[in-house]
């Protein structure tokens, strides 16, 4: 009955971290405040660092330590700092109004989680790594971040959704396949960083043009 007893301790730890990452993805979905949203994103990054370090230690792959350090610098320290500065500069720390109400979003989230678990089940059966069952969780947290991007109307929370989606992808890569080559990871890290900076500039332009960060204004064409 209990096959969980037979897997090694580090794999259990990774499973626990996977569950916590999913938990954070879920609570991001229900979070109303942008400040807390950014803090949750930082916490998710910290969990990611932990899981990458555990995978690195247990499989003896030194390049994963570098990617853990990179994640720590980028997703736990730098990006949250940039986002906090942005929200302060743009003065958008208050509540975000979701497009769909929160309980409905959560129900949608549960449906997505079931979908992701079912989708990942056949894939993880053919995977050879010991932490293969975390693939479903990684997929679920990617889809949840995606849902968050769809249901939020403010640009900042959409960017946090985008970044946490990248967290999910990164987690899928480390847990299911023991990490991508370092070059790819460096490339992605740089992309995310540059993306955030570009978004930051973009925010200011959106606000200057429409005096709001609500992206609904972008749907209307208008002559200048």
């Amino acid at each position: 009955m209990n096959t969980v007893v037979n897997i090694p301790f580090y794999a259990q730890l990774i499973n626990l971290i996977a569950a916590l990452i999913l938990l954070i993805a879920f609570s991001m979905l229900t979070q109303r405040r942008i400040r807390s949203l950014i803090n949750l994103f930082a916490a998710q990054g910290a969990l990611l660092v932990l899981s990458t370090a555990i995978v690195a230690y247990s499989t003896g792959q030194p390049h994963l330590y570098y990617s853990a350090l990179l994640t720590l610098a980028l997703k736990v320290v730098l990006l949250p700092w940039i986002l906090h500065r942005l929200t302060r500069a743009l003065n958008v720390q208050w509540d975000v109004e979701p497009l769909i109400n929160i309980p409905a979003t959560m129900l949608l989230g549960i449906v997505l989680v079931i979908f992701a678990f079912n989708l990942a089940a056949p894939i993880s059966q053919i995977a050879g790594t010991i932490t293969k069952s975390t693939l479903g969780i990684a997929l679920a947290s990617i889809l949840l971040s995606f849902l968050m991007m769809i249901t939020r109307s403010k640009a900042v929370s959409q960017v946090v959704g985008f970044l946490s989606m990248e967290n999910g992808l990164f987690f899928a890569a480390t847990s299911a396949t023991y990490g991508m080559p370092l070059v790819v990871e460096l490339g992605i890290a740089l992309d995310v960083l540059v993306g955030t900076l570009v978004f930051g500039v973009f925010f200011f332009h959106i606000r200057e043009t429409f005096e709001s960060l609500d992206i609904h204004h972008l749907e209307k064409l208008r002559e200048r």
Partner: protein
Amino acid sequence: MNQAGGIVFQVLQSVLVVLIAPLMLGWVNQCRAWLQNRSGPGITQPYRVIHKLLYKEAVVAYDASPLFRATPYILFGCMWLAVGIVPVLATDLPFAPAADVVALVGLFALARVFVSLAGMDTGTSFGTLGARREMMIGFLAEPAMLMTLFTASLISQSTSLPTIVETLGQRELVIYPSMAFAAIAFLMVLLAENARIPIDNPSTHLELTMIHEAMILEYSARHLALVEWASSLKLTAYIAIGFAIFVPWGIAQPDDWRGLAIAFAVFTVKLALAGAGLAVIETVSAKMRIFRAPEFLATAFLLATLGMLTHFVLET
């Protein structure tokens, strides 16, 4: 095990928990007072309140039916039975087979129905308002509670609490990720069911916000003492269920007298920590609007469901 030993264990546990429950409430209030920079009334204050109330003359509304008089006793009886069933100090209690976790939730529901009926019985608008709110919170909290307990049941393949404790606590340490979800959901249900801060404020008598206090507004003297004592017992029972599922270490084996002493010490320490934690949660969070409560409890329910789902993905 021999029958007599079990009965002694049962009596000891029931009496000890009933005596310790007001102390628990006093400890939580004292911690809250410290955190808010007040000196606080001391942790024995609930005993003094109960003592004072027991010596007062009971006043019952003119229109009150026998149900109103009977409810405090039924409430206290339900909670006492609940702490008799939950493995607080020992797993092998003669009472324990009487009810599994589902029946335990039913027992709490029985108490809730009676308090709500008594709240409406005197016909005051406050009582009715409180009863309605209580039932709204209750019907949302119950499925979340059941889902949490089912997650633990799925792991231990049983809905009986002693078996859950034995499976989780007395084997080698295994991390169950689904329990992380269940623990958070359980904490949210605990706060909602025991009228603690994000949902209800136990120390308010403001008509717009009170839920539990509104229902028991008409009670006085010995009735009120029993109701207060029962609510401290309910809090202790919930925390004990939480211990049994999430930190089940240190609960005594059958017929192990030294284990019982250790179990009592461990239980006291865990209770003190849980009380301090509860005080921290109540201090850092603000009370929610009543219409946010469904959202809070829906989150609890969905987290518990998520726990069950992760159990199927990660642990089978």
